[in-house]
């Protein structure tokens, strides 16, 4: 008994200590609520001409796994844009613009595109880029031994199947027609072809890459920045330096770009405020709001383009969502504004399949909306009438709702649960880790209900419709169409939209596709997520980009000589790299 009392005392003491510890740390970190440090001003007026010099310092909590243009990794594509130049590129509105190619010609049948390259373009290793390099790079990217996650995007190239599965010696879809001219032959006209040519796998790589992918190749392209030996420490940092032979004279302005990986969000904020990082992209919700609401920072805190779409995914092969009326009821029952309020800094309510800043989005097509009366009517039509006054009726069995643990979906799940309770649908939330979530929700007949999101692979509305709702995207496992939604009419519309080259006619087809998925509601579209991007004022020519985060080529630094501000250990920390010493810097204007 005495022992039990002693143990109990110790237990309560530990609880008390835990509380005290939390309180102490909370007070210690109360600085989180102290005013933000002031922005570090630029040295000159807004009209000043760009200057060369400076290193852009960025950070990310994630890590870049590979820098080869063919591995198609999302986090690497921002860096890939700096290392590799494409025949074409995308501008800030996601329009296709010339890059290595000065111009291109399309045959009247839409089956052949001929690109005319700039002459005397130099790779990072000094070699000249020619049409042979374009063909070799494409064949390397699409070879069956290459771990290219985006290879199927180019399946419309003539001879793709033979080359990727039957060991054909070359890819006939890419033809060298001159030293600086290369033709791409397609099986069918393709409205997205030019956009796909701007993606990383289609960008030429140095001759040192050879004809086949190997893990140990050091990234080398014709982009504005190059990777020097030792410039990439796996899991830690990546430094790219200016390519002096870049084909656009005078560009880039920056000497180098440095990205530190694996940095937690609190540290990122501390370093950004201290001027060690120049741009802050990953923030805690509270910090994002503070930057957005602080009048000093407001002009420099911008929301990135909306290229992600989220919704509640309903498996149309499993009850009750095999009934279209139930799906419509769900789409009408969700209060999307609550989703926005959960993360007001960068989540906005959204009611369409396609995000607002993706070409092809049309706000004039009516979206799903909150209407409880209509939702109850859909439930009645489905055969599950519900009386909100008595709580009787509705769909009696509880539906398992699988969500990724520690994701935003875990919070929105609570909103969803309450929203659906009003129309007689009861859900049980099951949180699992990310690989499990992916495996379960994209497998046939496994999960009836889950939150899903899609971020653009390339800036075109059809990427969303194709990936999420086309029948061809259904698979027993790894199905990107995780609603397992089949609609021959939609398939036909999408097929036409793929091959329609007239912009107006194509937009009409995309609008029709949107109307179909709105009506059939394989997803209840809920919100769109946007990163809050904060920069220091001395970062000039700062332009957000819908595919590459921001445009670095023309960015320049208007900053001044650093004066170290150090603490008691300052003399110990003095080094040529202040960011390594982790100290604050204050800049005096020249």
């Amino acid at each position: 008994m005495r022992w039990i009392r002693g143990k109990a005392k110790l237990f309560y003491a530990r609880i008390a200590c835990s509380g005290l510890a939390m309180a102490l740390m909370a007070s210690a970190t109360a600085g989180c609520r102290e005013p933000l440090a002031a922005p570090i001003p630029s040295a000159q007026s807004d009209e000043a001409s760009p200057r060369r010099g400076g290193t852009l310092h960025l950070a990310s909590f994630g890590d870049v796994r590979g820098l080869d243009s063919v591995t198609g990794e999302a986090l690497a594509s921002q860096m890939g844009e700096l290392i590799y130049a494409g025949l074409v590129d995308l501008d800030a509105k996601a329009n296709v613009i010339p890059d290595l190619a000065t111009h291109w010609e399309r045959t009247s049948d839409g089956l052949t595109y001929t690109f005319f390259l700039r002459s005397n373009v130099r790779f990072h290793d000094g070699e000249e880029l020619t049409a042979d390099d374009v063909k070799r790079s494409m064949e390397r990217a699409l070879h069956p031994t290459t771990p290219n996650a985006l290879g199927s995007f180019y399946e419309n190239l003539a001879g793709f199947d033979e080359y990727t599965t039957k060991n054909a010696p070359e890819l006939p879809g890419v033809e060298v027609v001159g030293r600086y001219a290369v033709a791409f032959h397609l099986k069918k006209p393709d409205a997205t072809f030019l956009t796909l040519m701007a993606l990383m796998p289609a960008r030429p790589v140095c001759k040192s890459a050879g004809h086949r992918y190997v893990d140990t190749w050091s990234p080398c392209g014709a982009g504005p920045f190059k990777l020097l030996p030792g410039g990439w420490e796996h899991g830690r940092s990546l430094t790219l330096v200016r390519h002096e032979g870049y084909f656009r004279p005078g560009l880039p302005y920056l000497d180098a770009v440095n990205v530190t990986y694996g940095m937690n969000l609190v540290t990122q904020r501390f370093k950004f405020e201290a001027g060690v990082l120049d741009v802050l992209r990953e923030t805690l919700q509270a910090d994002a709001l503070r930057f957005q609401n602080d009048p000093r920072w407001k002009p420099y805190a911008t929301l990135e383009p909306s290229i992600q779409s989220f919704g509640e995914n309903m498996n149309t092969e499993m009850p009750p969502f095999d009934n279209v009326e139930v799906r419509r009821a769900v789409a009408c029952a969700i209060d999307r504004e609550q989703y926005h309020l959960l993360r007001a800094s960068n989540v906005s309510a959204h009611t369409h399949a396609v995000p607002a800043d993706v070409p092809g989005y049309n706000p004039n097509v009516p979206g799903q909306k909150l209407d409880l009366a209509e939702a109850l009517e859909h439930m009645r039509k489905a055969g599950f009438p519900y009386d909100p006054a008595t709580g009787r009726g509705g769909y009696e069995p509880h539906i398992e709702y699988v969500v990724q643990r520690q994701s935003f979906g875990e919070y929105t799940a609570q909103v969803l649960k309450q929203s659906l309770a009003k129309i007689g649908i009861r859900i049980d939330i099951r949180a699992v880790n990310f690989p499990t979530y992916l495996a379960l929700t994209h497998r046939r007949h496994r999960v009836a209900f889950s939150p899903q999101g899609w971020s653009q692979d390339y800036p075109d509305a059809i990427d969303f419709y194709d990936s999420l709702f086309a029948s061809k995207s259904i698979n027993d496992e790894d199905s990107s169409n995780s609603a397992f939604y089949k609609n021959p009419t939609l398939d036909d519309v999408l097929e036409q939209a793929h091959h329609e080259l007239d912009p107006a006619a194509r937009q009409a087809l995309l609008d029709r596709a949107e109307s179909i998925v709105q009506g059939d509601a394989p997803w209840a579209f809920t919100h769109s997520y946007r990163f809050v991007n904060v920069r220091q004022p001395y970062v000039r020519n700062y332009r957000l980009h819908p595919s590459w985060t921001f445009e670095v080529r023309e960015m320049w630094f208007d900053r001044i000589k650093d004066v170290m501000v150090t603490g008691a250990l300052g003399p110990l920390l003095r080094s040529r790299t202040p960011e390594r010493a982790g100290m604050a810097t204050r800049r005096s204007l020249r």
Partner: protein
Amino acid sequence: MKRLAERLVWAVLVLWAVITLTFVINNVLPGDPARMVAGPAARPADIERIRQQLGLDRPLLAQYARFMSRLVHTPRAAADDVPDKEHASCAAWGQLHIDLGKSYQQRRPVTTILAEKLPRTAMLAMAALLVQLVLGVLMGILAAMKRGTRADLGIVGVSLLGVSMPTFMLGIGLQYVFAHRLKWLPLDGFGKTPRENLLSLVLPALTLGIFGAAYYTRLVRDEMIGLLQQDYIRTALAKGASRYRAVLVHALRNALVPIVTVVALDLGALVGGAVVTETLFRWPGIGALSVNALLDRDGPVILGTVLLTSTAIVLSNVVADFLYVLLDPRIRASSGDTPR
């Protein structure tokens, strides 16, 4: 010697069991490594191609056999088995080579990745252990000597606070005070010069060490209180030994017996990395690597980190056993393993 050989055979068996179990668990868990490599946007045809490239389309037994046969082999075997010989990296150990394959995600040999991370983890582990030992033993002795006084109460209270405080809270607090506000130390990272490394080490070592020190304090205090009531201590005091001499010379050695065991076990566990601390301070060690590998379903890296960690724990257990025997003659006598 016979006892040592016996322990080592057991150690090898334990390691084999751990590796096999990890392999099985890793393969039955939901989540497709090929899908994780390809990313959510990849289409099934691309995922299938990547699956074949990684050898994940083979039967499970064949994958296991391939892994085990490559794990420890002679250079000749390596030449037969490793597909891209020019890039195969093995840790040579006499005539034996250890080949853990390539990371699915990084596409680099696992041995290379571990070789990069291990020294940094070891550095952090040793520094944290130093903090734990110095703080823990000193505070423990002081509390035992001042038993029942306010000083004792204060030390016990502080140690209870240290044990109760979540590591991430302590870490963020230290970062905020010493790096962000006072600017005495780096916020995170790992420097390029020895001096920078040393400064970068301070905060993570303190974060990791304070928790352990709190635990050691209580352990040493309790052990010391028991020992200070023993007859031989009273005899030493009666013979005129000072109180400090009685404590530091006579009692401390015996108090160290359980401490040494705990330290050896701690060291083994610390080699496995301190996930929270390493992540918080961007310390490039084994802990953060293993968690990321687990989330990415990066099988070869998971197996590599498990093998490394379990080897460290098994070896530290063996070392702890022998230190125990060396420090306590009574155990030596009872085991009949008297050294010459």
